[in-house]
C-alpha cells in the first residue's frame, strides 16, 4: 500500500495544466458572457436572435460533443487546413480552451441575465424618476446584480473545473489524463482514480472556500442593519 505515495507526484503534475485550462476557459467565457449579456440587455435587433440561438445550441448539447466538434471537426475542410487558423485548431490545448470558453460563456450569460432580470423593476423606475441617464441606471443595476451573481458564479467555476477533465479525451495530460495513463501502466485502478478524485475534491473545496469568503465581503450589507 505504499504505491499511492509514488502515484501522487505524477498526478500532481497535472494540477498546473488543469488550472491553466480552467482559468483560460473561464476568462474566455466571461468575455463572451459579457458581450452576449450586453446584446440581450440592449435588445440589439438581429444580434439578439443570434445570441439566443447561440445560448440554445451551447447549453442544449453535451460539452463532449462540442469539444470533439472543435478538435476533430475542422480537419474535414481542406480550405481550413490551408488557412492560418489551422496552426491553432490542430493544437488540443487551444481547442479545449476554446470549447470550454464557448460553453462557459453560454452558461455564464444565462446567469448574468438572470441576475439582471431579478433586479426589481421599481429600482430602474426610481433611477429614471431621479433623472439618471441610461448609463447611470445601468450602473445601479449592475452593482445590484453583481452581488447576487457571485454565489451562482462559484458554481460555474466548479463546473468549468470539472469540465476541464474532458481535456483528457483529446490527449491533454491534465490530472485526469495522467490518471488514465497511470491506470494503463499499473492497473492499480482503484487507488489511482481515488487519488485523482481526492485532488479534484481538494481543488473544488479550496475554490468553494475562496468564493465563500468573497461572498461574505460582497454581501456584507445584508448582515449590517
Amino acid at each position, binding site marked *: 500500500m505504499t504505491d499511492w505515495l509514488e502515484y501522487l507526484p505524477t498526478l500532481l503534475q497535472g494540477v498546473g495544466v488543469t488550472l491553466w485550462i480552467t482559468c483560460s476557459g473561464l476568462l474566455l467565457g466571461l468575455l463572451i458572457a459579457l458581450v452576449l449579456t450586453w446584446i440581450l440587455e440592449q435588445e440589439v435587433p438581429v444580434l439578439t436572435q443570434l445570441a439566443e440561438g447561440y445560448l*440554445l*445550441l451551447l447549453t*442544449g*448539447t*453535451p*460539452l*463532449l*460533443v*462540442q469539444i*470533439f*466538434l472543435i478538435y*476533430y*471537426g*475542422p*480537419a*474535414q*475542410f481542406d480550405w481550413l487546413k490551408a488557412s492560418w487558423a489551422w496552426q491553432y485548431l490542430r493544437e488540443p490545448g487551444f481547442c479545449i480552451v476554446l470549447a470550454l470558453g464557448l460553453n462557459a460563456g453560454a452558461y455564464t450569460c444565462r446567469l448574468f441575465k438572470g441576475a439582471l432580470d431579478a433586479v426589481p423593476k421599481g429600482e430602474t423606475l426610481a433611477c429614471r424618476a431621479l433623472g439618471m441617464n441610461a448609463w447611470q441606471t445601468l450602473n445601479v443595476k449592475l452593482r445590484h446584480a453583481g452581488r447576487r451573481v457571485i454565489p451562482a458564479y462559484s458554481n460555474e467555476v*466548479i463546473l468549468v*473545473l*470539472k*469540465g*476541464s*477533465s*474532458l481535456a*483528457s*479525451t483529446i490527449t491533454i495530460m491534465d490530472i*485526469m489524463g495522467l*490518471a*488514465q495513463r497511470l*491506470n494503463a501502466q499499473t*492497473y*492499480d*485502478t*482503484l487507488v489511482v*482514480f*481515488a487519488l*485523482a*478524485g481526492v485532488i*479534484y*475534491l481538494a481543488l*473544488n*473545496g479550496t475554490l468553494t472556500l475562496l468564493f465563500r469568503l468573497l461572498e461574505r465581503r460582497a454581501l456584507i450589507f445584508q448582515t449590517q442593519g
Partner: protein
Amino acid sequence: MLTHLLNAALMTLGLALVSLAFGLVLAVLFSAAEMSRQAWLRWPAVTLTTTLRGLPEILVVFFIYFGSTHLLFLLTGEYLEFSPFWCGVTALSLLFAAYAAQTLRGALNAVPRGQRQAAQALGLPPLYTFFHIVLPQTWRHALPGLGNQWLILLKDTALVSLIGVHDLMHQAKMISASSYQPFTWYGTAALIYLAITIISQHGVRRLQARVTRYD
C-alpha cells in the same frame, strides 16, 4: 448512416431514462437519509452526495467501470468485465441522485408542516403519510429543479461513450472515422441532442402546468 445515428439516439434515450428511474429512487433515499435524525444515516449520505458533486463526471464513470472490475479481481482473483451499459447507468444515476437529493430536500421542506401534523392528528402511519400526503405535494416544488437535472443527465450520457456504450456519441465517432467527415457527423449528433433537449423542455413545462393546476 443517419438511421444508425437515430438508432444510437434511442440507446442514449434509453440509457437516460433508465438512469432517471434509478436516480429518482436513489435521490429519495439520499434526501431521506440526509434529513434523518440518526447521525449514522445522515453523515454517510451527506459525504457521498458532496463527494459526487465535487468530482468530475468522467472520473465517476471511469471509477465505476474500471474500478468494479479491479475490485472483483482483488476480491476473487478472477478477471471479469461488467457490462458498460449498467456501469454507465450506475454512474449516471448516482450523479443524478447526488444533485436531485438537494432539490428534493428543499422541496420536502417547502411542504407546509401543518400537512404532516394533520396526518399525524388523523392517526395515519408515518410511511403512509410520507408516500400519500407529503411526496405528492413535493413534486410541484421539485419539478423545475428535477427538470434541469434531467437535461444535465441527458448531456452527461455522452460520457459513457468513452467506456464503450454504443450510444449516440459513440456512433457519431465511428461514422466520423469511417467517412472522414467529422464535422458533419458530430454536428448531426449535436443537433439530435439539441432536439431531445428541446422536446424534454417542452415536456417538463407541460408536466409543470399539470402539477400546479390547483395553485
